[in-house]
């Protein structure tokens, strides 16, 4: 059975950091290990061969990142979250700012961006919102931009949409093309996709709402702490932060600068600068 020890995992993350300036050194070990093993299995590489390939083939790094980062997601994941967004959070933001900005941090293949745009469209406010979707991985960003997904994924997405109680038929939002669902471009008129590194990247804008659901679970607690500081700085006062339903901020230094708006859906509000 393929295995790798912690020392070798550290060697890999250190090498990637030194050579390519991607920092996986503070990733949660259990999932990082599974990802690396997965790559070794896919590419039929030993630890030494993997280290050699990373060292000698700079072109390999994008492929490596694409496999390393977890890109499994669904549209309208946790429909109850999206209902709260529609009924409480977005209306609350609009009380203060009719036009506002959303950051999808770690947007992966863009399913959450699609969900958000559909929701905003149905609320009739899509044109009032600027959305910035970022990810570390350029390949996955490219896929997100295409907004094209295997048709077989649509069954689950549509089920979620129905539970979200969307007002249209889910099929209205895409056309079928070669076994894919291609979402209509006009949904994304106010979305810009950018490469951004949550770990090493700078603060680049201020937002009314930051969504970072099930991204920080791949980080260890030190890194979660650091990233929360960045989100804090990237939010306007009284802006909202949404994380995954089983994530928690309570052990972070900056937790006291937020209040819990909805504990079930893990939606927080920045109350202190």
């Amino acid at each position, binding site marked *: 059975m393929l295995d790798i020890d*912690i020392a070798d995992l550290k060697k890999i993350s250190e090498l990637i950091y030194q050579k390519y300036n991607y920092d996986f050194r503070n990733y*949660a*070990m*259990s*999932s990082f290990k*599974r*990802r690396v093993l997965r790559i070794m299995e896919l590419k039929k590489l030993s630890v030494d061969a993997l280290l050699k390939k990373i060292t000698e083939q700079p072109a390999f790094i994008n492929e490596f990142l694409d496999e390393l980062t*977890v890109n*499994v*997601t669904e549209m309208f*994941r*946790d*429909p*109850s979250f999206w209902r709260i967004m529609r009924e409480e959070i977005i209306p609350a933001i609009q009380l203060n700012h009719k036009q506002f900005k959303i950051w999808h941090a770690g947007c992966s293949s863009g399913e959450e961006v699609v969900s958000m745009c559909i929701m905003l469209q149905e609320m009739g406010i899509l044109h009032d919102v600027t959305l910035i979707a970022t990810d570390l991985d350029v390949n996955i960003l490219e896929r997100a931009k295409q907004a094209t997904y295997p048709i077989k994924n649509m069954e689950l997405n549509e*089920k*979620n949409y129905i*539970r979200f109680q969307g007002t249209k038929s889910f099929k209205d939002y895409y056309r079928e093309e070669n076994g894919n669902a291609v979402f209509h471009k006009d949904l994304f008129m106010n979305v810009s996709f950018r490469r951004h590194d949550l770990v090493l990247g700078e603060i680049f804008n201020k937002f009314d709402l930051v969504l970072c659901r*099930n991204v*920080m*679970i*791949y980080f*260890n*607690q030190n890194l*979660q702490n650091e990233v929360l500081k960045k989100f804090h700085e990237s939010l306007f006062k009284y802006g909202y932060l949404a994380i*995954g*339903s*089983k*994530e*928690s901020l309570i*052990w972070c230094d900056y937790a006291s600068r937020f209040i819990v708006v909805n504990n079930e859906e893990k939606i927080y509000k920045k109350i202190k600068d």
Partner: protein
Amino acid sequence: MSKFNLNNSYKAVVIGGSAGSFQGVVKILSQLPKGFPLPIIMCLHRLKHVRNGFVEALSIKSVVQVTEPHDKENIKKGSVYLAPANYHMSVELGLHFALSTEEMINNSRPAIDITLGTSAFVYKDKLIGILLSGANKDGALGMKHIHDRGGLTIVQEPSECMIDTMPKAALAVTKIDHVLKVDQIVEFLKELDKQYR
């Protein structure tokens, strides 16, 4: 009653189950000795989109309140944990949980192999793994990890299982120390509990 030849070196119990395991788990949790000294870490197959209700149903008769841990939550002695819906649940070296939304394994998220495998890595020979009734082979590999790292392995007696695919798969890939009916698993845990008194 020393037939299990137990000692007090164990640090955790991990339980996997799928179709047909609910009654067994309820029985185990309801007859758990008060103040059971080890954490019980459970990964049971469940509907992906139903977040609520399962933990409550398990808690009704349980001696200890069952909780679904948050990501990075510390593992406490005597607590009973259940892998939350639509997340894989790993145990990390710092004795806390890490959740993930990686690909399904054996069509499952949470996958039993992940919870069992990471527990085996962390607890080594200080772990007891129990695999109950189920309709697929998830958990078999996890049980192998537990055995390979020196832990103790138990599967539910296949003839008692509603669906015996899961324990049989484990029996096929690794050495299982005890094949027990649920009542005997309860007895085992009571016996284990005594080692810590």
